[in-house]
């Protein structure tokens, strides 16, 4: 389900070059979770991944996030938790249950193309993020309030998001959501931050999804909390304003009335939690993080339409002729690596998972040319029948994949987990496998197999 009509691929390493190409109308490609999964025509692709725009750092108490920072990098960064009172990592996790998609989706892409119910968008609004937009002639700053309303306004004519700045950590924050199942997009989500100066709230931010528009703040509600102690009465006045002002949406999933109705408890709970956190100055919990994998610097690749690429596949060199539009999935299957399974074509099922430089990603959302010079591993490179990898042996012993179609994705996701965390908890194992659907066996056996493999490895 790759975007159609891809004719050329450009990967500059200098921002000036990227801006010039963007001004010519080439489509910027960040993570690719939306661009490559949509059926539209995209003739010329401008890959932003070699511009060095990824990464998080603290600058003068501000959190600076490169536009190409992935949602997973936010979750894996120790600085993201205190700098956002835990809100941004929570939103990244809620936004997608899949580590595969979180490993691709970027903050920039999510800001520009995020859908109506983007919880990351709501969190960035509540965190007062400022977008740094580069253009050929100048670099401008645009507050999230403006930028997220209509990103194209700031980007028309070839602008590119360079980074996001989250100025100062709030004292308290919370995210509340309602969804039919945990992994589904929310019917309504509320992101809240509060900052106190002495006894009184100096700043409150309330952003919602489930609106007729993209996620938005409710300014009238925020002022009801500001300059109060965040007492119950103030919070209730604030909620009244949310219900009055927010343009709740009606769609197939829920009516505007339903959304308005649940907005009251959700906003109230989020506010209560945020204020309590601020008052009690609770430390922000940082989960155990996977040690960072080395990042390979990408080289420039201008005007690629077709040609030979080289990569390391399962430890051996592979040279292959590809076109700009060739997906990694198709390339590998053309070379008879049939362990890479075609599933949904949109990255949500995980059947086509491979490891690229040790990171699991869905090969259906990866242009083959993007893996030039990198190291790719498929299930064929995991272990042989006579010398199985411990996770393969554990899957067999547990009967964890009855039909076998999901096994390659699950196994590679599990390997990536065990390579960085040899003793995962059940929650960590579930998180690692959540990008791969397994309708035959449910998930108990695969999760048990991962834990058994970890024990066997000790």
């Amino acid at each position, binding site marked *: *389900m790759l975007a*159609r*009509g891809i004719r050329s691929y450009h990967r500059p390493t200098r921002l000036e070059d990227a801006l010039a190409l963007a001004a010519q109308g080439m489509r910027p490609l960040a993570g690719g979770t939306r661009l490559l999964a949509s059926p539209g025509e995209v003739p010329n692709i401008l890959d932003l991944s070699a511009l060095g725009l990824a990464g998080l750092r603290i600058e003068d108490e501000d959190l600076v996030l490169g536009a190409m920072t992935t949602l997973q990098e936010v979750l894996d960064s120790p600085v993201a938790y205190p700098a956002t009172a835990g809100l941004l990592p929570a939103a990244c996790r809620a936004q997608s*249950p*899949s580590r595969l998609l979180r490993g691709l989706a970027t903050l920039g892409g999510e800001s520009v193309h995020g859908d109506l119910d983007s919880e990351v968008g709501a969190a960035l609004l509540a965190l007062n993020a400022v977008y740094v937009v580069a253009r050929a002639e100048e670099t401008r700053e645009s507050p999230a309030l403006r930028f997220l309303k209509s990103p194209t306004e700031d980007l028309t004519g070839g602008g590119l998001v360079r980074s996001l700045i989250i100025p100062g950590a709030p004292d308290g924050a919370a995210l509340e959501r*309602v*969804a*039919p*199942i*945990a992994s*589904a997009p929310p*019917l309504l989500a509320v992101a809240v931050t509060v900052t106190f100066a002495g006894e009184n709230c100096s700043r409150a931010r309330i952003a919602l999804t489930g609106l007729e528009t993209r996620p938005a703040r409710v300014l009238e509600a925020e002022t009801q909390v500001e300059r109060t102690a965040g007492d119950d009465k103030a919070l209730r006045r604030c909620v009244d304003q949310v219900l009055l002002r927010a343009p709740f949406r009606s769609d*197939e*999933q829920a009516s505007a009335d*339903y959304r308005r109705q*649940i907005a*009251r408890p959700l906003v109230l709970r989020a506010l209560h939690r945020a204020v309590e956190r601020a008052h009690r100055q609770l430390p922000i919990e940082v989960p155990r993080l996977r040690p960072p994998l080395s990042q390979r610097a990408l080289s420039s690749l201008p005007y690629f339409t077709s040609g030979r690429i080289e990569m390391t596949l399962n430890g051996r060199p592979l040279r292959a002729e590809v076109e700009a539009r060739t997906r990694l999935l198709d390339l590998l*299957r053309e070379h008879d690596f*049939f*362990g*890479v*399974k*075609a*599933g*949904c074509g*949109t990255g*949500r*099922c995980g*059947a086509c998972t491979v490891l690229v430089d040790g990171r699991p990603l869905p090969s259906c959302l990866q242009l083959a040319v993007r893996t030039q010079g990198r190291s790719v591993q498929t299930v*064929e490179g*995991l*272990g042989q*029948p006579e010398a*199985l990898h411990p996770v*393969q042996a554990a899957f*067999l012993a*547990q*009967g964890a*994949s*009855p*039909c*076998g*179609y*999901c*096994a390659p994705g699950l*196994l590679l996701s599990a390997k990536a987990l065990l390579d960085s965390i040899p003793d995962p908890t059940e929650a960590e194992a*579930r*998180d690692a496998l*959540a*990008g791969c*659907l*397994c*309708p*035959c*066996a*449910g*998930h*108990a*056996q695969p*999760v048990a197999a991962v834990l058994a493999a970890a024990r066997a490895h000790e």
Partner: protein
Amino acid sequence: MSTKRVTGQGRFADDFRPAGLLHVAVTRCPHPHARVLSVDASAARGLPGVVLVVGPEDAPEVLRAHPRYVGDRVALVAAEDPELAAHAADAMRIAYAEQPATLAHEEALRPGAPTVLEGATNLAAEVRSEAGDVEGAFASAERVLQATYRLARLPLGPLEPPVALTWLDEDRRLLVRSSTETPHRVRGRLAECLHIPAARIRMETPLVGGGFGAKSDLLLEDLCALVTLRTGRPARLSLSRDQALALAPALPAETVTVRSALREGGLLALDLALVLDAGAAEASEERLRSAVSSALAPYRLAHFRFHGCAVHTHRPPPAPVTGGGVAFAVESHLDEVAAALGLDPLELRLSLLGHAGEGEPGKEATREDVLHTVLSAGARAIGWSRRWKASAGPGPKRRGVGLALARRDGAGGPRATAALQLGEDGSLSLVLGPTARDAGAETVLCRLAAQVVGARDEDVVPATGEAEFALAEAEGGTPALALSACAVEEAARRLRAALIEVGARLLGLPASELSTGSGAIRGPRSRALPFAEVGRECLRSGAPLVARASLEPADLPPASAGFFAEVETDTETGQMRVVRLVGALGCGPPAEAALVEARVQGEMLRALGHALGGSLPDPVLTAIDAPETQILFVPTDVPVTPFGNTFTGDLARRALAAALANAVAQAGPRVRDVPLTPVALLSGIEALP
């Protein structure tokens, strides 16, 4: 154990590329009901690389000039490249005259409803049955309850998307390699619609990446085959996951109205009316009958009436599975009856199991002992006695525990087949139907065959390829593993008997003095004849030893299971959280517990996905959605197979949604529609007194 599924070596339908492959794309109707006025294929035909364009007039056997649902096939193109084929299919200019459509099954029988099949009403099948004196029971009732339960259409969502590959062999026979669960049925349907002898069609049977009924019928194979027959070239056609969720056979939409007559603190009579959405396809009465017999089989009711209708709508045809709607309605309604009578739902069920009564659906032996054991084991595991006292805390969250019984007999289910053939070297090929070839199960079945025949484990090898096809598993669905094991055992017994018969002749000894073991026939005074010698002898005489067995699902005892759920409902938002699930299965403890448990876990999670996420575009749950789930294999009879003594599948689908709804109702509203969305829960909470 076979490692192919964990090393990427297992071959599924799409894992094969014949040379010179053409890619097929289908132009699908955007309207639920329409007539094609004109087809302008000039733009598509003019594209370089397009090899074939077929409109509905050119191939009425596989394309429709009168499409009957959104996504119905109207035209097809074949091209050298998949992207080009998709582009060409979009370039077909087709003018439609939209027709009025019947979209809701509840409307299908209203006078004046647009009809789906020409020259017929929308009534596809109808079944009535009655036992006892229902009118009299309702006339004498102290109280009558009535409620209507609805299940939305629910896609099944196996991971492997539907795909078909077709090509011609050197004898110009049609080869078909597809993701179907039912190759035999597909071959029959192909022969019928393409007007070629079935013997000219060879089905390859690769691994199947999940099915659950979604791959139980002709879906793509005919379109693909048409391209191969017209061009002489190999062709491939697939559905994307999103297309498959919309178009592949799904669980049907169902509406069930239940009336119950209560008297003297008990349930006197039930009156059920089912309307099932059969879509734009034929439906069988058998299916309606089994829907109700399964749901009511556990209970003994003196007075009972059922009226079931399958109706046509302008929707894609559903999967050939039964029982979900009636089971959900009956198991929900029993809790409503219990509430009205002030009884514990568990006690009510136990009392209904004990009642002796007449009546068709309840007349078979109910094996109360199994049901009692299943219910009490599950109740113990979920903590029924402790938790049934509800939880009305100060906060907005309420906890509840619910249960539902599931019962399944073999009526209408798929057969299981097996065949064993002795080779000239003494090895044995075991031929299994496609769905018995799941990881692990295949290995276990081979070992079972070896034990029964008296061969060495390594000498029994699963056969793959065309040969398997000789053994059809009849109508759709997945046969019970236990049934497959029985079929293997029976085939192995027959082969052993045949071996001994030949051995007796060769050794000049009476068969009664012979036995088998370690790959040889053994007689008195340590005389032994290796199977290899028997194999060679049979080959010389032109009569290789083959034994087959094909068993009816009715050959297994009926299966009973109890499903229990503990849920927490947020009364301010309608959000439901499943705290814990317990499935208690009355199949005896299987020796291969892990294999069986994986399947039951999967089915429970699919049922949970449907019950909670059925309104989502893709209702398959991820690892973070899966609640703590406990599976109990309740010891009943001596287990006769490695997989227990009866069905372990297709039980959760019938009961889990009711267990959840009953758990919600314990401390909150009664929700009678599946899926149980937060929206439905909250509106139920609002309506509470």
